[in-house]
C-alpha cells in the first residue's frame, strides 16, 4: 500500500471515528427519521447490519482482465541489450499498435516465472548444434603449482564466466515471423559474432503475456508471478481513475458540510420513498433518490417510489402483460419516474430561453398531429409526485437552474435497475449511482456473469461503464458488511474476497426466496423487507 493510500485510509478512519463519537452524543436528543440505520464499528446498540460501498467492476475489467497475447523474447547479455532493442524498434514495423507499456521490456532471469526461463526453444530445435561442454563429464585435474587434485565442473565454469543476461520482450508474435526475426537478429551482435554466439546462442522464445494493464497492484503481482514482470501504474483503462473513485467514496461517506446527506441517509430515504408508494398500493417497493452536489453541499432534488401498479386510466386496473412477473406499467419504475420528475422540476424552474424552447417543442407535437391529452400522458409517465414525501422534494426549488438533464447528479437506489432504467441513467448523464440490492436476473449495471463458486450472478451488461456508449458513470453496490470478524474498515487486498462472499451470499438469499416467497425475514434488517418480490422482477 502506498503512503498516500495509507494516509487516506488513516484520515478517513479518524474522521469516521470522531463522527461516530459525535453521533453517540447527539443521538439521545435527536431522532431523525432517516437515522434508523445504526453506525458501525462497535457503536451498534441496535441489531442492524452496516453497509459499505463496493465499486462495481466494469464490463471490460471482467471481460478483458485475463486476455493474453503471444510475444517473442530473447535472452542476451545486458551490455548488448540497448543495441538489440534499437534494432528491433527500427526493423519490426507497427509493433507500437499494441500497447504493452505495462510490461517490462527487459527482465532479469531471476524475476521471470520458471516456465518462461526454462521454456522450450524452437529455433534451437530448428538449428540444433551439439554443445560439447554440456555433455563433457567433469574431470579431475592437478594445477601446475600444487599436488592437490581438484574437480573441474564444466557447469560451474560456464556460470562463472557468463556475465549478466537479460530477457528482452521483442514484440507480439503477429508482427514478425519467427524465421524473419531469427534472420534479423543473426545479423547483429552478440548473435552474429562467432565468439559471443558460442556463449549466447540465439534462443528465441514464444511467451504468453497479459495484453492489458492490470487494474490493481495485486493483479500486477499475480501477473508478474504467472506471466512476465508487470507494472501497476495507478490508472485504470477500463473504468474510472482510482483517485476519482477515492474522492467520490470520500464525498459519499463523509459529511463534510452541516446538513449534508451521506450515502447511509440517502439509502434509507430511498427505502422510505419506495415504501410510501408501496403502502398506497401503487408499487412493489423499490425507491430512488436523486441528489445534486454543488461545492460540497448536497441537495436532494427528486425522490420517487416504484409505481408500476398505479392505474393509467381512472377506474381501471393495471394488468400484467406477462404471467411470470409484476410487470405492470414499465414507466412506473422508480428510476424512470425520478428522472422524469427532475425534468418536470427543471421545466418549472427554467429560464425564459429554456422554457420558450420547451414550449416550442411541445407545440411541435401538435404540428405533428399528436394527441395532447396531458392527463393521460402524466398518468402513463408518472413524472409528477404521487406521495407527500415525493411532493416535499419536488416542491423545493433547489436545482441549479438550466442544468442539462441529470448531468453529474447522484442516484441512490434500493435495487439494481433493469436495463431500461440503467440506459435511462446513461441517457440522463448521471454522475454516480449507488444501489443496495443486486438483481442477478434483471439488473443492468453489474458486469459479472458468473462465478465459479456460486454460478450465475448477473446478466453481465455492466451498463455503467461501457466504452461503446457515449457516457459512463461510477457505480457502487452498497454491500452488507461481513457479520463476523468484520472490523469495519476493509483493506484493499481483501476487497475482492469480501465482494465474492457477498455475491455468493446474495445469490443464496435469492435462491432461498423461491421457496420462502413473501415469508417475513427473521432478521430485523431494515433493508431486508424491501425485496418482497421475485428475483425475476425488473426494477
Amino acid at each position: 500500500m502506498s503512503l498516500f493510500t495509507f494516509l487516506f485510509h488513516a484520515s478517513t478512519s479518524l474522521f469516521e471515528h470522531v463522527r461516530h463519537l459525535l453521533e453517540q452524543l447527539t443521538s439521545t436528543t435527536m431522532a431523525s427519521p432517516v437515522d434508523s440505520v445504526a453506525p458501525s464499528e462497535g457503536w451498534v446498540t441496535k441489531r442492524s447490519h452496516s453497509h459499505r460501498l463496493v465499486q462495481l467492476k466494469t464490463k471490460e475489467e471482467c471481460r478483458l482482465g485475463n486476455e493474453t497475447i503471444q510475444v517473442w523474447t530473447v535472452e542476451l547479455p545486458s551490455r548488448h541489450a540497448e543495441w538489440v532493442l534499437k534494432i528491433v524498434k527500427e526493423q519490426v514495423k507497427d509493433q507500437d499498435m499494441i500497447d504493452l507499456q505495462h510490461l517490462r521490456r527487459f527482465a532479469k532471469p531471476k524475476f521471470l516465472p520458471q516456465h518462461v526461463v526454462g521454456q522450450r526453444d524452437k529455433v534451437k530445435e530448428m538449428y540444433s548444434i551439439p554443445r560439447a561442454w554440456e555433455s563433457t563429464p567433469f574431470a579431475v585435474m592437478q594445477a601446475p603449482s600444487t599436488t592437490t587434485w581438484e574437480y573441474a565442473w564444466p557447469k560451474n565454469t560456464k556460470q562463472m564466466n557468463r556475465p549478466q543476461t537479460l530477457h528482452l520482450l521483442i514484440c507480439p508474435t503477429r508482427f514478425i515471423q519467427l524465421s524473419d526475426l531469427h534472420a534479423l537478429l543473426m545479423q547483429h551482435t552478440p548473435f552474429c559474432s562467432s565468439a559471443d554466439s558460442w556463449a549466447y546462442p540465439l534462443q528465441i522464445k514464444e511467451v504468453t503475456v497479459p495484453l492489458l494493464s492490470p487494474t490493481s497492484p495485486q493483479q500486477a503481482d499475480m501477473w508478474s508471478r504467472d506471466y512476465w514482470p508487470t507494472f501497476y501504474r495507478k490508472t485504470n483503462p477500463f473504468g474510472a481513475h482510482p483517485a476519482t473513485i477515492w474522492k467520490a467514496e470520500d464525498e459519499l461517506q463523509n459529511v463534510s458540510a452541516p446538513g449534508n446527506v451521506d450515502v447511509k441517509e440517502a439509502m434509507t430515504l430511498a427505502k422510505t420513498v419506495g415504501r410510501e408508494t408501496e403502502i398506497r398500493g401503487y408499487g412493489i417497493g423499490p425507491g430512488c433518490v436523486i441528489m445534486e452536489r454543488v461545492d460540497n453541499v448536497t441537495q436532494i432534488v427528486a425522490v420517487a417510489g416504484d409505481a408500476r401498479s398505479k392505474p393509467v386510466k381512472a377506474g381501471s386496473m393495471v394488468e400484467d402483460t406477462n404471467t411470470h412477473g409484476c410487470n405492470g406499467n414499465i414507466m412506473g419504475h422508480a428510476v424512470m419516474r425520478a428522472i422524469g420528475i427532475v425534468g418536470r422540476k427543471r421545466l418549472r424552474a427554467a429560464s425564459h430561453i429554456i422554457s420558450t424552447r420547451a414550449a416550442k417543442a411541445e407545440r411541435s407535437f401538435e404540428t405533428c398531429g399528436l394527441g395532447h391529452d396531458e392527463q393521460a400522458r402524466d398518468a402513463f409517465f408518472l413524472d409528477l409526485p404521487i406521495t407527500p414525501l415525493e411532493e416535499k422534494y419536488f416542491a423545493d426549488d433547489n436545482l441549479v437552474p438550466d442544468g442539462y438533464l441529470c448531468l453529474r447528479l447522484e442516484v441512490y437506489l434500493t435495487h439494481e435497475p433493469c436495463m431500461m432504467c440503467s440506459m435511462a441513467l446513461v441517457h440522463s448523464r448521471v454522475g454516480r449511482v449507488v444501489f443496495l440490492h443486486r438483481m442477478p436476473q434483471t439488473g443492468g449495471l453489474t458486469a459479472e456473469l458468473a462465478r465459479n463458486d456460486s454460478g450465475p450472478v448477473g446478466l453481465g451488461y455492466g451498463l455503467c461503464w461501457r466504452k461503446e456508449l457515449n457516457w459512463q458513470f461510477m457505480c457502487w453496490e452498497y454491500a452488507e458488511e461481513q457479520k463476523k470478524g468484520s472490523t469495519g474498515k476493509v483493506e484493499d487486498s481483501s476487497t475482492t474476497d469480501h465482494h465474492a462472499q457477498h455475491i455468493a451470499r446474495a445469490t443464496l438469499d435469492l435462491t432461498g426466496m423461491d421457496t420462502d416467497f413473501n415469508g417475513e425475514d427473521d432478521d430485523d434488517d431494515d433493508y431486508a423487507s424491501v425485496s418482497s418480490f421475485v428475483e425475476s422482477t425488473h426494477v
Partner: protein
Amino acid sequence: MVFPPIPNREYHEHFMRQAIQMAELALASDETPVGCVFVHSGEVIGRGINGTNASLNGTRHAEFVALAEIMSRHPQSILTTTDLYVTVEPCIMCASALRQYGIRAVYFGCLNDRFGGCGGVMKIHSDPGVDPAYPVYGGLFREEAIMLLRRFYVQENEKAPEPKPKKNRELKTEILPVTVTQPTAAAAKSNMAAARAGELKHQMA
C-alpha cells in the same frame, strides 16, 4: 450488418412510410427526426416523435410518446399483438422497455450504432432474459432514415453542455453500411456538427 429479407415487405413499407412522415414532421419543427408508429391488426394505434426537448427529459423517446397515446385508449395487453415501426433502431432503453411490455415485433429503418438495443450495439431484444424475446427486422427505407438524421445534425442545438471537439467530423453525403443515432447523442455533438457545417458553407462560398 446485412439485413435479411423481410417477408411481405410492401405491407411493412406502408407503415414505415408513415413512421418516416412522423420523422419529417419532427425535423420540420426542429425536433430530432425519429418517428414511429405502433400497428395493431393493420391499424395505427399510436404515433410518436421524440419529446426530449419538450420535457427536458432525455428518456422521452418517440416510442414512449407513442406508448402514452396507446395506453390512454387501450389495455396494456394490446402490445402483445402489436408491431412497432420506427425509423431508427430502438435504443437499449427502449428495446428493454418494449420487451418488458411484450411487443410482438419491431421493424426499423437504420441501425443505431451509438446505443442501439436491437443489434446496433446490444441485442436486448433477443438476449437471455426473463421476458420473451421479440423479432426485429431492419433496413426499411434505411437511406431515408439516415438522411433525415444527417439533415438534423447540421442544425443547431445549443443545449448541450461543453461540446467536445471531434476530429475528422465531416458532413458525409454517401450512405455507409451502418449509421447514426437518436437524440441525446445528437444533443452532445450537434454543436460541433453545426460548426462544421458552417465551415463547409464557408469553403463553398
